[in-house]
């Protein structure tokens, strides 16, 4: 699971008012290099929750991203490289996503988050 996907996931348990962002418990993180696409990065930057993204990257052990970012930083290739790496090259392979309200853990195995709910959570 990439951090772009993490940024799009929320806890969907019945009764949870704000299930975003899910806290990451990382047991295994892997890196897979992919080609950079500037347009895609610029497009996604506008849609990303930056704070959640930075916190998520740090929970995967990547500490190069600034606390705050604005669109002008996309002109910097140094920034773009870091942004690209954290968004698309880091993968949470094993671990869990934790609901910020209830503490319920959604497992991530072999890179696949499992967001299925139990019957009493729907």
């Amino acid at each position, binding site marked *: 699971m990439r951090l772009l996907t993490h940024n799009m996931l929320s806890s*969907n348990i019945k009764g949870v008012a704000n*299930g975003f962002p899910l806290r990451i418990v990382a047991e295994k993180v892997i890196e897979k290099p992919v080609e950079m696409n500037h347009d895609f990065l610029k497009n996604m930057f506008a849609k990303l929750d930056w704070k959640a993204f930075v916190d998520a990257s740090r929970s995967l052990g990547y500490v190069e991203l600034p606390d705050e970012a604005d669109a002008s930083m996309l002109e910097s290739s140094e920034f773009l490289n870091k942004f690209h790496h954290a968004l698309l090259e880091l993968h949470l392979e094993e671990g869990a996503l934790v609901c910020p309200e209830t503490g319920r853990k959604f497992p991530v195995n*072999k890179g*696949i988050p*499992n*967001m*299925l709910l139990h019957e009493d959570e729907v």
Partner: protein
Amino acid sequence: MGGQSFDSGSAINHSRMPSRIAQIRKVCSHPEVYDPCDDSFALVDALLADRSNLLEHEPKICMEIGCGSGYVITSLALMLGKESPGSFYIATDVNPDAVATTQKTLQAHEVDAEVVTCDIASGLEHRLAGMVDVMVVNPPYVPTPEDEVGGDGITAAWAGGIDGRTVIDRILPVADNLLSDKGWLYMVTLTTNNPSQICLKMKEWGYASRIIVQRSTEEESLHIIKFWRDFPSSRSLPRPGSGHLGVKGSLLSQLSRLQFWGSGSGSS
């Protein structure tokens, strides 16, 4: 299983199109996962038939709901491939075995996509709302008793409840929520699902529709319908000159035919 009959029906110029879809021998299999069959092939044929429009569309996020073996999402990623490098693919299935199988099929084709185990798009609906430019769905459309819907394992791949509409009717509002203003939805339906009624329902939500591929087998009559936002909705602004869709015909011009098809379904 219907074999690899990619050449039937649709108007695809194969001579000019190298193989850009998933290879059956590389599609992974699992006893609890639906193997690619006529419906999957028809959906991929529809995407191929619309490929030049898809490339022009430059989708940022493509999504499949109910990815099964991974045949369709892999094919979509392959056919857009290097000509649409800025696309991100995400696939979901309620069956964990299907999601794992999709991941293996993607890897076997060296294709990159994210996979999530969830019910339709549960967990993604809040943050992914309005961001999906292309959505593909081969829903469980087979009419079954209601209590067979959504079971564990492979049953969830086909059990569709009354008229095969139970899961389709749950997917449509999710699709409406997730699709971007320029979003397109491609969905497999069966005559028994009453596609004309589906199109009318989607029209009320501001979608135009068109049948891309229509195919009859011994067992079933399938049509792949494409939906796109065509009218000002609560979220989208009017877009002058949005006749850029490359599609001929309209819902209305096809409706009489659809109603004819739907006439034998006996649905409410």
